[in-house]
């Protein structure tokens, strides 16, 4: 990639830090994102109420459940499936009031699933603090058949829907929570550039 080149649509992630001003806090994390949560509690234990939703899905994922349990005396909820975690998120948001601050740590896919779940409650993406951990894997949106393919680690991938070979662009859609995928061999079918893992 060209140096100094930066696409505005590409999200910027930070390290989680507490908002000083809030009436309550909601922290969501999965897998190795648990470390970001532990770091957050290393900074301090806020005076306002804190709720933590932690998911540990796959077998191979690092599990911080036990450490989190011993550190967080507040409201900690553990999940085996993202679906359940997101459902709980929706229940919490339904009754939440302004002043709730939201923090997410996990893969880019998880982060944008949370963003999408929070949006119907009038929460803008920019209000959610996001830390990307674990993997750079991208969620890819096929501009041809509109299928979303998750966990793409290579520059070129096969679309789950139409099986076209897609080039994974840097252009990110906040609404879809995905990078745009464009057919690579439209001009000369079958001629593909080298496929490399660049989003490990």
């Amino acid at each position, binding site marked *: 990639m060209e140096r100094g080149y930066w696409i505005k649509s590409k999200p910027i992630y930070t390290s989680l830090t507490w908002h000083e001003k809030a009436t309550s806090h909601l922290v969501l994390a999965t897998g190795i994102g648990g470390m970001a949560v532990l770091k957050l509690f290393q900074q301090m234990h806020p005076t306002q109420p804190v709720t933590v939703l932690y998911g540990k899905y796959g077998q191979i994922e690092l599990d911080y459940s036990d450490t989190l349990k011993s550190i967080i005396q507040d409201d900690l909820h553990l999940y085996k499936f993202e679906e359940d975690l997101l459902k709980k998120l929706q229940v919490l948001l339904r009754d939440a009031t302004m002043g709730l601050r939201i923090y997410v740590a996990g893969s880019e896919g998880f982060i944008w699933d949370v963003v999408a779940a929070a949006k119907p*409650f009038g929460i803008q993406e920019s209000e959610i603090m996001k830390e990307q951990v674990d993997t750079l894997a991208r969620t890819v949106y096929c501009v041809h058949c509109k299928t979303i393919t998750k966990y793409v680690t290579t520059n070129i991938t096969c679309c789950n829907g139409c099986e076209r070979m897609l080039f994974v662009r840097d252009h990110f859609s906040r609404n879809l929570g995905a990078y745009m995928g464009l057919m690579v061999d439209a001009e000369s079918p079958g001629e593909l550039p080298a496929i490399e893992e660049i989003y490990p």
Partner: protein
Amino acid sequence: MSTINVKVAAVEEVTPLIKHFRLESEDGADLPPFSGGSHIVVTMDAEGRTYRNPYSLMGSPSDTRAYHISVRRQESSRGGSVFMHERVQVGMRLKITHPVNLFSLSKLAHKHILIAGGIGITPFMSQIEDLKAVDADYELHYAFRSYEQAAFVNELEEKCEGKLYCYADSQNERIDLTELLRHQPLGTHVYVCGPSPMVVAVLETARNLGWPENNIHHEEFSAPPVGEPFKVQLARSGIEVEVPAEMSMLEAIEEAGVAADSLCRGGVCGRCELTVLETDGGIQHHDHYLSDSEKVSCRSIMPCVSRTKGKRLVVDL
């Protein structure tokens, strides 16, 4: 800036201090459409000087045959509002700018809390029309000195159908901002228009309660504060302008024939920002645009409302 020629079609005294003007285009054509919260700048040619004052459009956005503005006679008057009160009569011609909206309702909001102080009610008059048109969830909190001095209370009561909350200072009624803003559902946006201390109080309360900046909106229409006279040197134009005590720096620069940018003329939008090259007395910032650290650094000034405490200022214009 392109202007529209209008004639004054009606003038009405709403309270002893507030007058309501109906403006129609000179040729009887429809006026440009606008959205709730928009304002226009009225140019007034008084002998010896020109006033340019921003006023909110308070009519219904669906009615473009006329614009409606209300003007409160300012006690510490610097002329503009007095001119509107004493000199402007039915049939008179005025020049106005196209409507600009720096105080628009958020389309993403699930609920709107509108907070008005005194004449700051005007932008909400048109916004309420927009809110009603889409059946939005809202509350209007209107604070004023006394019922005798408050404008449009009856009209609002009718329009708002139970969503209006009034607070009269004379009866010791105050808005408890913390109480009001602490229990709002997610997706609520707050809007405030009124005197500076009220705007500051709302901004601070919302921020302290953890409201994101995107959900806080404000507008301030106060006459630019008066101060000590000083001289401002325009480095690029190579001229020096006297700023009298009762004129804003922006007005003085315009009076001198130098084209300066402006939009809200109330220290909110940032359009008029000028780089300060030199100052011998520091800046009296009256705006809500620059951040605290920018204010301390004194590298910028918003000439529509701010002044210098010193005798001389050099800006990059």
